[in-house]
């Protein structure tokens, strides 16, 4: 199997592609920290998928007699001000975190990639117009702009995701454009132009595949920032609304009890920290594998 994957003379398209993937995986697996990051992300995904099985309590059931209990056998991470089990809330909150991360990851980089490659490849007026729009978005601090959007759209987790996506595409457009500018005058692009390929074909089939790897790395590294922005919006009461167990919102309510009942705010904070760290480690590892400068 290993030999079949790593052969120098693949016999079919699929084998060539799988062999390439396997080679990348081997390089990735050599990086211990990256594997730790991958492990954290896999755990997060499993936790989100199996949330009802893993959670010991309902994330919404209130038990006012047992409010603000410290961590114990019955409540592993203690209870919050309504007597809800914090462990169960964190487990269910992983679904929200993943939901935010996934939606942002499939929207912002795609928009950024399209705008950046089109702008970089076509140049001229298209480039000027698209890049000035990008500049306008870049001129605002991300969180402030997201706050403005959420304020206009109304609080809620869906609007928070839209706001984060709208504010996070410009850097991707910039990266994709820079990457495209280095590619567009290369001989292999000239060659495909000489074959009569349309700009759409060249951008989709030839430019984008070369930009995606650096973009994937950047997106993974930004995931931590996205989670933090989402948590920040939740903390400010503009993201997920109570009683949703969003980690940022949980920290926000726990803040009032920080000195006497530290676990209410600290444990969701730790969850954000661990997941952000996981994405950062994963991104670092992916950079080593995907960075086109080494390939």
């Amino acid at each position, binding site marked *: 199997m290993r030999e079949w994957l790593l052969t*120098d*003379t693949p016999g079919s398209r699929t*084998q060539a592609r799988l062999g390439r993937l396997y080679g990348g995986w081997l390089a990735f697996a050599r990086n211990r920290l990256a594997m730790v990051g991958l492990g954290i992300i896999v755990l997060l995904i499993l936790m989100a998928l199996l949330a009802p099985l893993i959670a010991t309590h309902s994330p919404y059931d209130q038990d006012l007699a047992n409010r603000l209990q410290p961590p114990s056998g019955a409540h592993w991470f203690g209870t919050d001000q309504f007597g809800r089990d914090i462990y169960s809330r964190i487990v269910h909150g992983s679904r929200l975190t993943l939901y935010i991360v996934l939606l942002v990851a499939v929207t912002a980089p795609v928009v950024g990639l399209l705008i950046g490659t089109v702008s970089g490849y076509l140049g001229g007026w298209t480039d000027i117009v698209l890049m000035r729009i990008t500049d306008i978005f870049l001129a605002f601090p991300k969180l402030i702009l997201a706050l403005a959007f959420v304020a206009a759209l109304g609080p809620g987790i869906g609007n928070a995701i839209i706001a984060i996506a709208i504010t996070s595409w410009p850097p991707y457009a910039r990266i994709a454009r820079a990457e495209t500018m280095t590619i567009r005058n290369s001989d*292999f692009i*000239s060659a495909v*132009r*000489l074959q*009569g390929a349309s700009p759409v074909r060249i951008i989709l089939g030839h430019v984008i595949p070369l930009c995606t790897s650096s973009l994937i790395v950047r997106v993974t590294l930004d995931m931590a920032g996205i989670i933090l922005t989402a948590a920040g919006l939740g903390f400010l009461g503009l993201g997920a609304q109570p009683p949703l167990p969003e980690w940022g919102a949980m920290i926000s309510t726990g803040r009032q009890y920080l000195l006497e009942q530290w676990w209410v705010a600290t444990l969701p904070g730790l969850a954000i920290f661990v997941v952000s760290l996981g994405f950062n480690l994963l991104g670092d590892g992916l950079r080593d594998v995907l960075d086109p400068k080494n*390939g």
Partner: protein
Amino acid sequence: MIEVEDLNVIFGHGGGAIHAVRDVTFRVGAGESFGLVGESGSGKSTVLRAISGLNPDWTGIISVDGEAQRQRRDKAFHKRCQMVFQDPYGSLHPRHTVDRILEEPVAIHGMGDADKRIDRVLREVGLGPQFRFRFPHQLSGGQRQRVAIARALILEPRVLLLDEPTSALDVSVQAEILNLLKRLRSELALTYILVSHNLSVVAFMCDRLAVMNRGRVVEEMDAVTLRRGEASQDYTRQLLRASLGYDRAAADSFRDFA
């Protein structure tokens, strides 16, 4: 087959404009192999890029196969006229397999039968089917250049523009590629325009050639005259002397021909 008349190429505008090609005129007959020779910066590659359609900043007349060409070319032109680049390390997409590289032009022109065509063209350039699903980084320089030639040939063009096709390869591989190109020309009745700074390559490959210096054609002659070393212009004689290898007395006698 190819007529170029009063070709001028100017890059940039105003004070910073560079007049890269000045009033170049030549004709290449069908099935002929024509060389463009000159030192670096003489404008020979620029002429080739203008003919291929890669560079739209030209004025004058370029006609291929009896049709006057405009700055923008249509698909039919690209099917007739293909180009092989100098650097085989830069002319193949690093993330595409040989198969994908060769399949693309077939798909663009809707020629169909990609499988058979790829198989045949790989054989024509002397690569077996075992190379078909490799990525460029799994190929040597010579093999890459063969793939680049195959990519140009798969459209069944009538004209092949060769931009220093061997100067990035080591000497033994150079000979292989030149022999391959020579064989393909006679088998497929191709017309070549070959750009090179290497006089012996041109003498080997071409029937006729033009010598360029500072954007102008200095002299046109046939390969027989070149081999005998009977150039009529001073610049060409100097180029011939330079091509014999380094010689201090010769180097000292070189001058600038403006």
